[in-house]
């Protein structure tokens, strides 16, 4: 199925680029603009594809909606591991993924990587109280934050995942089950001789739909009524089960 889509997209790009955007060195598009979370949602792979008119490497970054994150460090007190120190980070991308056709350090100098925030550890994440805490400590906490995000499949780095086919390229982007709702920004960079020649931005929107959307809204907009409904449903289900089993 994916293969047929890929072929279709290649044909599409070939004709559209040949006709309208001869001057553009880089064109990108994604296989779908929105991801709907419904009851059978187990994560989603989407396809980013494009063409480039010149030789060069491709780097893709995907950033999810920003959030505030509380990071705790455990230390041993009285023989047990206790959350003791904490730092709050703001402007943390809830999701961050990076893809490229080869090792990023070989493509682009670290200075530009820092500038464009390419790579999870180069993200400019702010702390809420940086005046009291040393930079070394903040970096320790930041690394801890990134490790946790990677464990939850929300941060990923996939060098070599961008596949070239002459002027065309494509890459699969994986959104896990726990990808939060919101707008995800996808930036594609075309790099030649350590310089960024062109870049394109796409965005993808993740949203809950159907019964999932309704339940989520109900719980958040009418919490009291939701709580009462949950109790009534529970009592009803418990009674039904009991009646059924009495017959048997």
């Amino acid at each position, binding site marked *: 199925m994916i293969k047929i889509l890929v072929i279709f997209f290649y044909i599409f790009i070939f004709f559209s680029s040949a006709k309208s955007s001869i001057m553009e060195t880089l064109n990108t598009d994604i296989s779908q603009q929105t991801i709907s979370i419904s009851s059978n*949602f187990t994560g989603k792979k989407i396809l980013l594809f494009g063409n480039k008119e010149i030789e060069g490497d491709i780097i893709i970054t995907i950033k999810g909606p920003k959030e*505030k994150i509380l990071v705790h460090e455990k230390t041993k007190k009285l023989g*047990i591991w206790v959350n003791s120190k904490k730092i709050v980070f703001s402007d943390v991308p809830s999701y961050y993924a990076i893809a490229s056709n080869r090792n990023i350090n070989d493509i682009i100098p670290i200075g530009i990587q820092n500038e464009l925030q390419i790579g999870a550890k180069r993200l400019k994440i702010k702390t809420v109280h940086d005046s009291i805490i040393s930079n070394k400590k903040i970096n320790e906490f930041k*690394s801890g934050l990134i490790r946790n995000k990677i464990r939850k499949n929300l941060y990923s780095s996939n060098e070599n995942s961008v596949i070239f086919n002459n002027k065309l390229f494509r890459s699969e982007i994986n959104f896990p089950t726990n990808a939060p709702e919101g707008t995800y920004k996808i930036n594609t960079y075309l790099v030649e001789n350590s310089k960024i020649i062109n870049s394109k931005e796409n965005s993808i929107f993740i949203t809950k739909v159907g019964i999932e959307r309704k339940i989520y809204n109900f719980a958040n907009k009418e919490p009291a009524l939701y709580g009462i409904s949950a*109790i009534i*449903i529970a009592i009803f289900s*418990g009674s039904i089960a009991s009646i059924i089993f009495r017959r048997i």
Partner: protein
Amino acid sequence: MHIYFPIAEQSLHIFLVLGMGGGVGFLSGLFGVGGGFLMTPLLIFIGINPAVAVATEANQIVAASVSGVIAHWRRKNVDFKMGSIILIGGLMGSTIGSFIFKYLREIGQIDLVISITFAIFLLVIGLLMIFEGIRAILRSKRTGYRRKAHYHYWAHGLPFKARFHRSRLYTSILPPIFVGFIVGILSAIMGVGGGFIMIPAMIYILGMPTSAVIGTSLFQIIFVTANVTFLHSINTQTVDIVLALMLLAGAVVGAQFGAKISFKLKGEQLRALLGLIVLLVCGKIIFDLIIEPSDTFSIMPFISK
């Protein structure tokens, strides 16, 4: 086949959820405990957010307890008067407990408090049950031991006395209210019905007959966990109705089988068996507290006050 749970924001395999519900529900029917002391840690273990686990489990216990209490009611094993008195304390305790929960969550210590409370209570109660169970089994083998018509407990000397026909007790209403209050607090914080504390308290502190404790405990657990469900829905919006429904689909079936088998086993054997399970869960929790975590850093969404 996976199902996406809208409040937990997770996708889990349907058989995993049904199986967990069924297994814990079986124990729930067998021992008359809500099963929360097993289910809450299990849910957290499979990656559910602890706050969602606690609140959702409270909702599921409502259903499991309704189903369980009907089975006991048919056999006249519920002391409604005693249950209602305990419930007065239970509603007060669970209301206060839900606000303590909210506060501990804001200062980032809820997980630790949950673990330590579990460890302490499960250790004491597990040991007590095994000890009592073994002693009773040995005694019954030697002399054909039978329970006396009634014991005299220190609690019987307190004021505000009332007669409880089903429990064959004439005792003060203060100890049941107090027991209900303490268990209510724990119910809200730990996401448990509190049966594993309530049942020993009914036997050892209130002096109720073993035959009535399970049904009466389940009866008051329904209302306490309903209160917890309601308060967590309002305070934190963490009750996942879909997850609760799936868990209880498994649990109500399991609970029926558990309840049927419980009438065939002796009380002493049940107590020793439950004591063993309690100690196992306790051991795992203590192990997790003292062993160095693979990553000393952990993250959670920052909840602004």
